């Protein structure tokens, strides 16, 4: 039997004493793409932050295993080194730090963790050029400070580029489609599709079904009020689109209760 890439069991997490996740279960096998959909406030972003190790969230119950290791034992930077990548919904700006410098530090931190030699400037630039080409990223963007002066689309594309560069086992995309027009969405989706492989898995968090026209998921889960209330294949996304989230409320009606 294949070791699951990600195995979340009965995950409860809270922020400042308020419980957001109330028993999430999710298993992702290598090569699979899982989409998590849900209304605002259902806990989608919390789930991605908890997987990546944001300290503001307290895990009060449950477990997250990643490729056979206990993810909750690791700090955020160690999780990244172990192969978890989070593409941010709102990528953070770092004034005065060039993107290239930032990414070289990231690549070498991860290589060091994996027992590989650090890349020198030349090798790093070769790698950057190769990966930038693969996601259609204007390489001049990388001379700017991290996410500063990037348009919304550039930010998202840069996130996908970073994912390509850091070569994770698991990519978590937190509403990568938000704020993108259809052309930008296609480019981002294409970048992600290129990264799909038999070893790599994805958790694609989205509010709208639209993204899933371009990144075809193997499974779709509906997250509501901190729990996965329904799982299915990609057709579930279409049902959602048609009926809205209300249909998945415990009472089953569309009354908005």
């Amino acid at each position, binding site marked *: 039997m294949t070791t699951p890439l990600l195995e979340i069991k009965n995950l409860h997490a809270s922020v400042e004493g308020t419980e957001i996740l109330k028993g999430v279960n999710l298993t992702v096998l290598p090569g699979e793409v899982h989409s998590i959909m849900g209304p605002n406030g259902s806990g989608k972003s919390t789930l991605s932050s908890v997987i990546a190790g944001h300290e503001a969230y307290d895990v009060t119950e449950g477990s997250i295993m990643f490729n056979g290791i206990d993810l909750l034992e690791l700090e955020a*930077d160690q999780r990244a080194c172990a192969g978890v990548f989070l593409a*941010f919904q709102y990528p953070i700006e*770092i004034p005065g*730090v060039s993107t290239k410098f930032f990414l070289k530090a990231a690549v070498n931190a991860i290589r060091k963790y994996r027992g590989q030699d650090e890349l020198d400037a030349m090798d790093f630039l070769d790698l950057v050029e190769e990966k930038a080409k693969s996601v259609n990223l204007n390489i001049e963007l990388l001379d700017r400070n991290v996410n500063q002066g990037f348009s919304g689309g550039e930010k998202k594309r840069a996130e996908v580029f970073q994912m390509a560069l*850091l070569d994770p086992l698991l990519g978590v995309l937190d509403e990568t489609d938000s704020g993108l027009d259809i052309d930008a969405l296609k480019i981002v989706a294409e970048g992600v599709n290129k990264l799909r492989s038999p070893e790599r898995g994805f958790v694609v968090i989205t509010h709208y079904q639209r993204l899933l026209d371009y990144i075809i998921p193997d499974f779709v889960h509906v997250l509501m009020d901190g729990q996965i209330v329904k799982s299915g294949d990609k057709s579930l996304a279409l049902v959602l689109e048609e009926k809205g989230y209300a249909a998945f409320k415990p009472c089953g009606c569309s009354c908005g209760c």
Partner: protein
Amino acid sequence: MSTQKNNLDVRKTTIDDQITSMPMPSSGTLLSSSNPVEEDTALLKETFKEKYKWGFVTDIEADSAPPGLDESTIAFISAKKKEPQWLLEWRLKAYRHWLTMEEPDWAHLKYNKPNYDEIIFYSAPKSLEDGPKSLDEVDPALLETYEKLGIPLHERAALAGVAVDAVFDSVSVGTTFKDKLEEVGIIFCPISEAVHEHPELVKKYLGTIVPYSDNYYATLNSAVFTDGSFVYIPKGVKCPMDLSTYFRINAKSTGQFERTLIIAEEGASVSYLEGCTAPMRDENQLHAAVVELIALDDADIKYSTVQNWYPGDENGVGGIYNFVTKRGKCQGDRSRITWTQVETGSAVTWKYPSCILLGDDSVGEFYSVALTNNYQQADTGTKMIHIGKNTRSTIISKGISAGFGQNIYRGLVKIMKSAEHARNYTQCDSMLMGDRCGAHTFPYIEIKNKTAKAEHEASTSKIGEDQLFYCNSRGISTEDSINMIVNGFCKEVFRELPMEFAVEARRLLEVSLESSVG
């Protein structure tokens, strides 16, 4: 990261017009933004375990004056230096004036005032009694001290291409590269030597930029200054190398009162670097220096400081009081003076390197990074006094506060009636780490000519969890992330520093912030 920007309109203040009087007005705060940060930051716990690495004491016999200050102490210092009568009289005039002055308390600083009766105002390593004839005659223990400090004093100086004048407690212990500089007519020597060998220059310029009556600490310095550097760059000469001074306080209970005078004649240019360290001691030691710069037509002086005096321990015990008056005068047309400072040390800093822009088209610049950690306090900034036409000034100030540190930017931009089309740009950014430190800005802008343009931008930000999380999520450790974020914040200032100093500054910042996040 939350950022708030203030774009200040030009406003008038009610400060007195004496450009050479107290560096800053004693009352009337224009804009004060205090930032006691409320948010809880679990990540940012101050543990500050990093030890001051320059805290060793060199065991050398010292020749000292008895503690305390009266006219006989001044006579003693003057006699030790075999000074001419005019200088002794100047010192005494300053001392008598000092007795009538009060220690200033307008700065946003809290500290116990120094007890001037307990300070030793003169301390010289004894083996220098008759002055070393060459570097070979310098006490090996002294040279070792400088070696520990990483100063290229000997042959290493040649490799580094830096000429060094090292001031240890109160006397200069050796100036490298003197001969080579002399070939092009540059004078670079201890000021005590310049008094004897170039009295006409010293007499002409000493106290013309910072008069003996200027302010409490400068007046004290005028009375008791012991040594410092003297630089003279003749007409049209571009100094072929960076000149450098290292100051070190070694003996116990001593004050250090050095005085530096730099003169750049027409078309001359020089880059001068200053570094400072001191041993770890429980009591506070006073450092009250004066630096005067004069730039004639088309001359260019770049003065860079990396200040790393002992900051006191993690409970705020000990450390240097760094009360310094630095001022440059762009006397000639098209002259330029640039102050760049990286202030990471000292328990208390009170320092406003300033420019008097007298010549038409002259330029004044001030680039500053000030870091306060633990219980350090820094009240620092600049004054730009525009007198000539088309004068320009730029102020970039970066304050970083961690632990219980208090960081104050205080700056004056003054555009006089005669300063047609003067321009100023001020940018003043503060970064807070943790929720127990403070950042305050007190900008004063005074404009008397309506063709003037002055811009002021200020921001306060906090190294946020989100920024750290973003770096972490890319595999970068928290400590490396903080260094990266802080260095990015200071970039505009670091790029003004000479290469080797920029490297040192980055390293110092890293050391000073080590373990600042738990």
